[in-house]
C-alpha cells in the first residue's frame, strides 16, 4: 500500500538522520576551556606583599617605599581608622550575610550614606560593596537600549563595562576635546530633527571622569556643564581618583572648579583610594539616586559592605573633615615630584601636576608593545631593587576599547617626605638612563 511505503521511507530517513546526528556529536571537538598561558606572561606572577601595603612596603622580600598604592591621604595605617574598624568588628562581626534588601542594612551603612551625602553637599548617597561595581551598576540603571551615551576615549574599564551592560549607543569623543564632543552633540541634534518622536524618548548622557586614571588629566567640567544645558544631556561624573584629592576640602572636581553640585546629575566614586577602605558610592539628588536602590544590580543582588569597612570609611571621612590642610600638602608634593621627574631622557611624564597618580611613558616606543612592556618592567624591577616600589599600569590588552600605551604608574601620598620624593626622582632617572640607553 502506498501509505505503508511512505511510512517505511519516513522511518528510514529518520533513522539515517539520527545516525548522522550521532556522528556529528562524536566528531565535534570544542576548543580547550582556556588557552594555555606562557610561563613568562608578564602578568602571571604577582608581586607578593608581606605585611600591610602602607608607606614602607615589603615586596617580594625587599623593603621599599610605596609609590604604587593609591593611599593618597595615608589613611591605610592610620590608628584612628583601625580603631574604628576594630570597634565595629567587635560589635558586628565581619560579614553582613545578606543583601541590603534582606537584613543586610546596618545602621553603619545608613550612617555612612548620610555622612557622604552631607560631605558632598548632595541630597542622598548610596553605597556599594565593591568599587568596580559602583559605576558599572550605576550606568545601566539609567541608560538603556536606545539611549545615547557620549563618553571620553580614556574612560576607565569599569565605565566601559557599565556601558556594555547598558546596551546603549556609545559615542566616543577624543580625550578632553570639547570641540569633538560638541561636534558629536551637533550631529545628534541633526538626527533628532529628522526624527523628533524618537528624540523625545531618547535619553542622552555624558560620562566623564574627574581625574582620569589612564592619563592623569582633569576633565574640563565648566565647559561640560555649558554643553549639558545647551544640548540637554545629563552628566555622570566618575570621581574615583579626584575624591579626597581635588578641591579645598577634598570634595572633588566640582569643588575644584567651583561648580554647583546640583549641576552634575550623578557623582560616583570608589572609597578604595583616598578613603583607604573598600567599596564605592554614588551621590546626587534623591530623584536620581533613589532609583538605584531598586535597579542597581550591584546593590540589590549582592551582599552589603562589611560594617568594619563602612566604619573605617566613616572615620576616614572624619579625619578628612578635621584636617582640610592635607589636600594642600598633597598638591604641593605632587607638584614637587612632577617637576623633579621632568627631563628624564627616554621617559615622559603624562598627567597634570596636581594629579597624585600619573604615568611615565616611553618617549619613543620600540615598535612592539611587548618590548615596551619588558623595558618598563626592567625599570620597575631595578627601582624595586633600590627600594622604590613602583608598578606598571595594567590593562587587559584585548578587552580595552582604546588601549593606552604601556606606562609606569607613580602615586604620590601625603606620607612621603620631601627627601623620599627626591630620592625616588633621582632613582628613576638613573635607572631609566641605564636601561634605555
Amino acid at each position, binding site marked *: 500500500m502506498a501509505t505503508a511505503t511512505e511510512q517505511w521511507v519516513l522511518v528510514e530517513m529518520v*533513522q539515517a538522520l539520527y545516525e548522522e546526528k550521532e556522528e556529528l556529536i562524536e566528531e565535534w571537538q570544542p576548543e580547550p576551556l582556556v588557552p594555555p598561558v606562557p610561563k613568562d606572561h608578564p602578568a602571571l606572577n604577582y608581586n607578593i606583599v608581606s605585611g600591610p601595603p602602607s608607606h614602607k*612596603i615589603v*615586596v617580594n622580600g625587599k623593603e621599599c617605599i610605596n609609590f604604587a598604592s593609591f593611599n593618597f591621604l595615608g589613611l591605610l595605617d592610620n590608628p584612628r581608622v583601625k580603631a574604628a574598624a576594630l570597634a565595629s568588628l567587635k560589635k558586628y562581626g565581619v560579614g*553582613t550575610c545578606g543583601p541590603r534588601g534582606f*537584613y543586610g542594612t*546596618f545602621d553603619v551603612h545608613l550612617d555612612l550614606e548620610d555622612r557622604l551625602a552631607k560631605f558632598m553637599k548632595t541630597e542622598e548617597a548610596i553605597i556599594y560593596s565593591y568599587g568596580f561595581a559602583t559605576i558599572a551598576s550605576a550606568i545601566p540603571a539609567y541608560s538603556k537600549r536606545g539611549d545615547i551615551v557620549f563618553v571620553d576615549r580614556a574612560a576607565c574599564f569599569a565605565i566601559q563595562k557599565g556601558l556594555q551592560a547598558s546596551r546603549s549607543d556609545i559615542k566616543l569623543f577624543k580625550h578632553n576635546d570639547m570641540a569633538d564632543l560638541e561636534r558629536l552633540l551637533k550631529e545628534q541634534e541633526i538626527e533628532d530633527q529628522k526624527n523628533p518622536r524618537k528624540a523625545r524618548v531618547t535619553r542622552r548622557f555624558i560620562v566623564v571622569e574627574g581625574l582620569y586614571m589612564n592619563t592623569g588629566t582633569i576633565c574640563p567640567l565648566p565647559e561640560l556643564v555649558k554643553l549639558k544645558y545647551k544640548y540637554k544631556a545629563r552628566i555622570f561624573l566618575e570621581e574615583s581618583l579626584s575624591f579626597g584629592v581635588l578641591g579645598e576640602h577634598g570634595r572633588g572636581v566640582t569643588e575644584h572648579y567651583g561648580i554647583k553640585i546640583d549641576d552634575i546629575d550623578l557623582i560616583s566614586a570608589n572609597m578604595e583610594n583616598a578613603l*583607604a577602605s573598600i567599596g564605592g558610592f554614588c551621590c546626587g539628588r534623591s*530623584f536620581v539616586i533613589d532609583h538605584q536602590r531598586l535597579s542597581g544590580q550591584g546593590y540589590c543582588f549582592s551582599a552589603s559592605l562589611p560594617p568594619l569597612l563602612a566604619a573605617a570609611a566613616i572615620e576616614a571621612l572624619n579625619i578628612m573633615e578635621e584636617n582640610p590642610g592635607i589636600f594642600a600638602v598633597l598638591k604641593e608634593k605632587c607638584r614637587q615630584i612632577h617637576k623633579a621627574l621632568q627631563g628624564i631622557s627616554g621617559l615622559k611624564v603624562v598627567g597634570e601636576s596636581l594629579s597624585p597618580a600619573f604615568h611615565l611613558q616611553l618617549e619613543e616606543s620600540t615598535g612592539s608593545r611587548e618590548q615596551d612592556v619588558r623595558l618598563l618592567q626592567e625599570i620597575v624591577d631595578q627601582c624595586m631593587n633600590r627600594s622604590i616600589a613602583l608598578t606598571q599600569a595594567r590593562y587587559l590588552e584585548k578587552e580595552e576599547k582604546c588601549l593606552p600605551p604601556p606606562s609606569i604608574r607613580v602615586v604620590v601620598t601625603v606620607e612621603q617626605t620631601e627627601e623620599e620624593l627626591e630620592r625616588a626622582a633621582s632613582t628613576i632617572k638613573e635607572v631609566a638612563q641605564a636601561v634605555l640607553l
Partner: protein
Amino acid sequence: MRPEPGGCCCRRTVRANGCVANGEVRNGYVRSSAAAAAAAAAAAGQIHHVTQNGGLYKRPFNEAFEETPMLVAVLTYVGYGVLTLFGYLRDFLRYWRIEKCHHATEREEQKDFVSLYQDFENFYTRNLYMRIRDNWNRPICSVPGARVDIMERQSHDYNWSFKYTGNIIKGVINMGSYNYLGFARNTGSCQEAAAKVLEEYGAGVCSTRQEIGNLDKHEELEELVARFLGVEAAMAYGMGFATNSMNIPALVGKGCLILSDELNHASLVLGARLSGATIRIFKHNNMQSLEKLLKDAIVYGQPRTRRPWKKILILVEGIYSMEGSIVRLPEVIALKKKYKAYLYLDEAHSIGALGPTGRGVVEYFGLDPEDVDVMMGTFTKSFGASGGYIGGKKELIDYLRTHSHSAVYATSLSPPVVEQIITSMKCIMGQDGTSLDATGQEFGQGTVGMTCLCSVVWDWPGRLKYLERLRWLVVGIVWRLLHSHVTWAGVTWSQAQLRLLTRAPSCMYLFRVA
C-alpha cells in the same frame, strides 16, 4: 492537594529504583511509534535519557514543589489588576494636584530634558512597591546571628519616608540572614584572628591584584580554598557578584554558546550577557531540555553560518536561592561528558551548607570535583565574610590570573575579611583543633532541611499590624516545632544554634530533602 505519603504533591512518576522522573517528556525526542522502535533498535546500548539511569544517583533524590492553587493564582492577578487601577487613579489625582506629591521630582532647570525614567518603570515603584516598601531594607544594629536587633522605624506618610523612633527591638529571631553555619559572630576565634589582622594590615588595600595589592594573605587564602574544594588551584575576588560578572566574559566570548538555567542569578545572567556569547536558556533543572539544547547546538552549529561552536558552557547553580531546588548534578555531569561541554557551577548557597563535610553540592552527590570545570562560590553565606572564589585546574586559574577583569582593575580582598574566611574554613575542615566529625553529617543535612522548611511568609502589607504579629507568631510556632523534631549539631565551640533560613517574604514553595 494533600501530600501523598511519599511527600510528592505534584504529578511525578516514581520509578522502581527510587528516582523521580522529571515530569513527562514533552520536548525533544521523536516519539511516533515507528520511529521510536527504529531508534531504539539502532541505538541499543547507548544512553539517551540519563534520568532513566538510576546508577547516577547514589541515594534517592526527591524534590517536591507545591503547585500554586488556582484560586491563589487568580486572586493574585486580580489583586495586581486592582492595584494598577488604583495606581492610575492616584497618578491622576497627583497630576491635578488633588493629592500631595511625595516623590522626588526633576530639577526646574532640567524639566525640558528627556525624562530620566520610563513611565511604566516608575509606575510600579510609585504605586505598587511603595505600599509594601516597609517589608524590605529593614536596618539592623547587631550581629546577624540567631537573634538580631532591629531598628524600629515608622512611616507617617504611607511609606514615602521613614523615621527612626530610636527604639531597638531586641532579640528578634533571625530568619532572614544567610548565616548558614553561624560564622557571623562578634566573639570567638574568627573574630579574634580578624581583629589581629586588622591591627596589623589595616582595613583597605588600595591597589589591584596585578599591581601591588597581592598580599601574602591572599596567596594563603587561595591555597586553602583549593585544598578545601579538592581542586588544583583557586583564586579569590572581592565581591561574589563581580566574580561571575567579570570572569564569565574572560572564559567565553563571541562564537561560544552559553546554556543557562532559567532561574539563574542576576550575576550569572550579567556575566553571560557581557561575554558576547550566544545564550540559550533551558527549563529549570530540566535535563531533557538541556540535552535537547546540547544536541541541537552541536548538530546545527551557530545560527546562520552553521559553523561549529567554539565551546559550550553550561551555567548552573548548586542551590537556587529563590526556589530552594538543588541542581541535578550527576545528570548534568553525565550530559556534559557525553557532549563535551564545560560546566560552570555557582555554589554561592551550597558551599559549606551541603555535603557531609560542607564541601558543597559535589560532595553531596558523591561526585569528583575534577568533573566540574569551573567551581565558583561565595564567602558571604557560609563563611560569614564577603567575596567570591573560583576553583579548578591550574591552567584555568593561571589564565584567570592573567585575564580576569577583577585581577587587573578591581581592588583585592580586605585583609581582615580574608582572615575571617581562612579561620572559618579551617574550622570547617577541622584544622583548628575542634572537630565536626560524625555530627557534621547531620549538621549538613539538617541545615539544608531547615533551609527548605521555609516557613512560608505571606506577603501582607505592613500596615496590617495585627496580621504581621500573627505572621511572626506562626513563624515562631513553626520554628519551635522544628527545633524539637530535628536533630542538628551546632559547631562545637558554640552552644548549638539552629539556623533557619527563609527567603523573605514571597516564598511560596516548600522543599524537602530526604
